[in-house]
Structure formats: C-alpha cells, structure tokens
C-alpha cells in the first residue's frame, strides 16, 4: 500500500513537471511564423544561444547581434526540428519562452535552419 502511494506521488510529480516543461510545438510539426509584436516579421537566429542572448541583452547589445539574424516575412512556413521549453528568459518577459529550431519551408530562405522564439511560431492547421 505504502509503495503504491509513493509510486502515485512520483507519477504525479513527474507528470506535473512534464506538463510544465512541455513545448507548445513539437518536432516534425508544420508551423507558420508570425510575430505578435507591432512588426509581425520574425527574426530567426543562427544559434539558440544567440536567440536567448538577444532577448536577455540590452538594446545596444541586441543591435550588435543583428548580423547573426535573418528577417522573414510573416506567414513564412517551417517545420519544427527541435524545441527547448522555457529556454529564453528576458527581464521584459512575463514568463520564460521556448526556443524552437525550424527548417524554413517557404520563401527565399527555404531549407535554411534557424532558431526562433516559441511565441513567434503557430501550428499550421490543415483545412
């Protein structure tokens, strides 16, 4: 009985942790890129570390990092390669955001793999 209870508690804790750590998108998922800031274009970064640095940096530091980013139009398609939950933190964010690796599947940069903020990707619904 005691073992069953302990197992149940462990399951609950692990389940909660998994739920908390879950990404909004998953590997292989088709997504559309769209930013919810005033400019809906999306900046995509050559590494996840730079993505995180960009959002944690001061404006001047972020400006210096711009050569490492590409700007894609809103509505660009992509496929999720990987996702790291809560990887990007910023003093200006209400809560940490995901870092998502995406292979661009439309537009002039098609086939390029870049890192993008979790809130800038939306699962693509098939009609």
């Amino acid at each position: 009985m005691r073992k069953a209870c302990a197992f149940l508690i462990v399951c609950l804790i692990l389940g909660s942790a998994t739920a908390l750590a879950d990404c909004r998108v998953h590997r292989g998922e088709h997504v559309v890129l769209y930013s919810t800031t005033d400019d809906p274009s999306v900046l995509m970064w050559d590494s996840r570390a730079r993505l995180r640095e960009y959002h944690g940096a001061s404006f001047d530091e972020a400006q210096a990092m711009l050569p490492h980013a590409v700007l894609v139009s809103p509505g660009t398609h992509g496929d999720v390669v990987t996702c790291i939950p809560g990887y990007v933190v910023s003093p200006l964010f209400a809560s940490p955001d995901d870092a998502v690796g995406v292979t661009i599947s439309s537009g002039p940069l098609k086939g390029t793999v870049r890192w993008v903020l979790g809130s800038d990707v939306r699962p693509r619904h098939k009609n």
Partner: protein
Amino acid sequence: MRSVSFASVTGTMLLTAFLLLSLGFAVEGSFETRAEIANTFSRQGQIQKAQIDLEELLRLQIDEENLLRGYLLTRDPFYDAEYRTASAGYDEKENEIRKTLGGQLLGADKLLADYARLQLEWRNTVAAPLLAHPRVRLEELDKRNKLFSDYETLTAAAIRRELAGKGDELERSTQRQLDRSSYLRAAWVLAFGLLAIVLNAYRTRLNHELEEERAVTRILQRAFRSESTPLPHCDVGSAYLSASSDRAVGGDVFDVYRLSENQALILIADISGKGVDAAVLTAFIKFMVRAIALRNSDPMAILTEFNVVLSKAVGDPYIFVSMFVGLLNTDTFGLTYASGGHDTAFVRRRDDVAQLEITGPVLGVMEEPFGSETIYLQPGDTLVLATDGLTEVRNGAGEQLSGQGAMELIARASRGAQQLADELAAAVRVRGGSRVRDDLAILAIRVLDGATPRA
C-alpha cells in the same frame, strides 16, 4: 460634605476632559485617515491617467510607423506630413505621462525613458534614412525596424505591468486604510459609548448625592434657622444671608426668645467657618444658650458658662465664637448684655448711632471673665445686632465697610425694624457683589414709639 462635592466636581471634570480629549483624537484621526485615503485615491487617479495616456502613446507610435510605411509605399507627401504630426503628438503625450507620473513611479519612469530613447533612435536610424531614400529598402534597416518593434512592444508591456501592479498595490492600500478606518471608528464608538455610560453613571451618582445633601440641608434649615419671636412693645426684624446661598444656612445665628412675661433673651453669634458644618454648631449654640439663660439671669454668667461648655463639647481649638447675649426687660426696656468679642452691636437713638462695647474675648479660646453692661432703650430706639458679614463686606476696590460705615448705613436706614434689616442686607449685597463671601445675620429690635417704660 464639601470634600465629597469637590471630589465629585473634580471627577466629572476629569471624565469630561477625557471624553473631550478622546473626541479630539477621534476627529484628528478621522481627518488623518481621510487625508491618507484622499492621497491614495489621488495616486490611483494618476496611475489610471498614466495608463490611458500610455495606450494613446502606443497608438501614436503605431501611427508613426504606419504613416512611414504609407509614405514608403505611395511616396505621397500627405503621409510624410501626417508622420511628422504623429511624431509631434507622440512627444507631447510622452511629456504628459512624465508629468503625470511625477517621478513617483521609478520603475515605470525608467521604462518610459527607455521607450522614448528607442523611439528616438528608431526615428534617427530607421525612419530618417528611409524618408531620405524611400526607394532604398535594405534588409539591415528592416531588421533594425524589427529590433525596435520588439523592444518597444516588450517595453510597453513592461510599463503596462508596472502601472497595473502599482494600481493594484494602491487599491490594496486603499482597502487596508478603509478597513483600518472602519475598525478605528468602531473602536472610538465603543470607547465613547463606554465613557458615556461611565459618565452617566457618575452623573447619576452625583445627582443622588446632591439630592441627599439637599434633603439634609432642608432638614437643617428647618432645625437650625435663626428665629425671632414677637416681643411686647417692640418691633422685631431680621435678615439672613448665607455665603452658601444654595443652602441658606451658615455659621451665623441669632435668636429672640421669651424667657418670661417680661424677659427676653436676645442672642447673636458668629462661628468661625461657614456652610453646613458651621450651621450644625449654630443649633448647639442656640439651644444651649436658651437652656443656660432659663436658669441664669446674668448675661455675663451665661457667656462664662457657655464658654466652658463650648470648649468641652466641641474640643476643636480652631473653632471660636463671637457672641452677644442680652436680656431685655420688656417693661423697663433695660438691656443687660455681655459681648464676647462681638463688636457689631449698635444702638440707634433718633439719628445718632452708637456702637456697643465688647465686654470680653471671643468664646472657645480662653477662660477669661466676661463683663456685662446695662443700657436703657427709649421709645423709637433701635437695637441693631449684626455679624461681621456687615462690617467686613468689601467693595470692588477691596475696602471693608468697617464699623463706622455700618453706623452710617444704620443712621440712614428706615425706622421700621424689618425694613432696616432688609436695607442693611441689600446694602451688603450691593457692596459685595452678587455673591456674599461671608454669612450675615442682622437682628433689629425697635422699641415702639408709643411704648411707655415702667419702673
């Protein structure tokens, strides 16, 4: 009785003072709480205005960007002009928010400064090159525009959070102040209620004590009142003023008592002290002197015997009595008297007034022998006996009337005994003001004009 009254008055005053003090604190506390709440409301108003202005600012900023895009796409100078108008509006609104915040919200102020700096840099590094070369669209400028957009969006969100957080905090603070104010009011109401109950109970007790004292006073007045009985061939008048006006009893006493068909005891005495305590002693004097006089026909012997009795009966070295005792023969109008330190005894013969000499010291001090004198009154003569309340009454300048002044008053007074007594009492009231400071007894005995002395 007097000490109880003093304690009662002191207690009432203390309680009233405490009640007033509490009331003062309550009123002051209410005003303070009101000021605090008003201040909090004012700050909440500031935050709300800043929030509204912030949304307006963001709208102007978006207008600025959209109008720039409009110009780049159409190259219509209209958009260029509108862009500049929006920029000016943005600057004006930003200053307005700064004024509203007034440096009180350091977090929001800093974020707003960051936001303003970003906007300025955007104008210089993105908008200005695009306005100068609308045909040139460089990816670097687009990325930079995106960078600005990201930061401005995030900064605006942070400002919103900061203002909302501060607003919530003020709301909670207001609620706390209102709660505290309510509890305080409840506490004050409770305190006032309790104090009012205590005060009322205290007042009731005082009223009860006062009523008891009044009842005792009424009994004393009945028992100890100085009195005069009519004498054959004589007109008798009297007046009495008590320093304790509400009690009408005091430390002065007079008595006219018929010892036999043609013999009357005439007594006036002044006891050191006044009020109820002295009044009690007057009864002792009145009845004791009557008792002695019934078996002793010499005023000198009456005073001597009474002096012994007084010392033994009272036993208080601080109490002494000045006393005039006379035995008036209503046939011959011969008055034999002894005066124990009582110098306010006068005889008016027509318009001439003479003061009767004292024949010994005040009673209750020493056992010295007393003398006696005999005078004969003629028809129309008036014997005027008073206590020192007559000669010692002071005018506004503090001057006593004195024996001479009293004699002048007596000389001018009406012939009727009662009128004379009333006029003297009125003169004392006028001279001493509305409140008499010392007890006063006046006894006037006038031999009627038609009376014929018999040998």
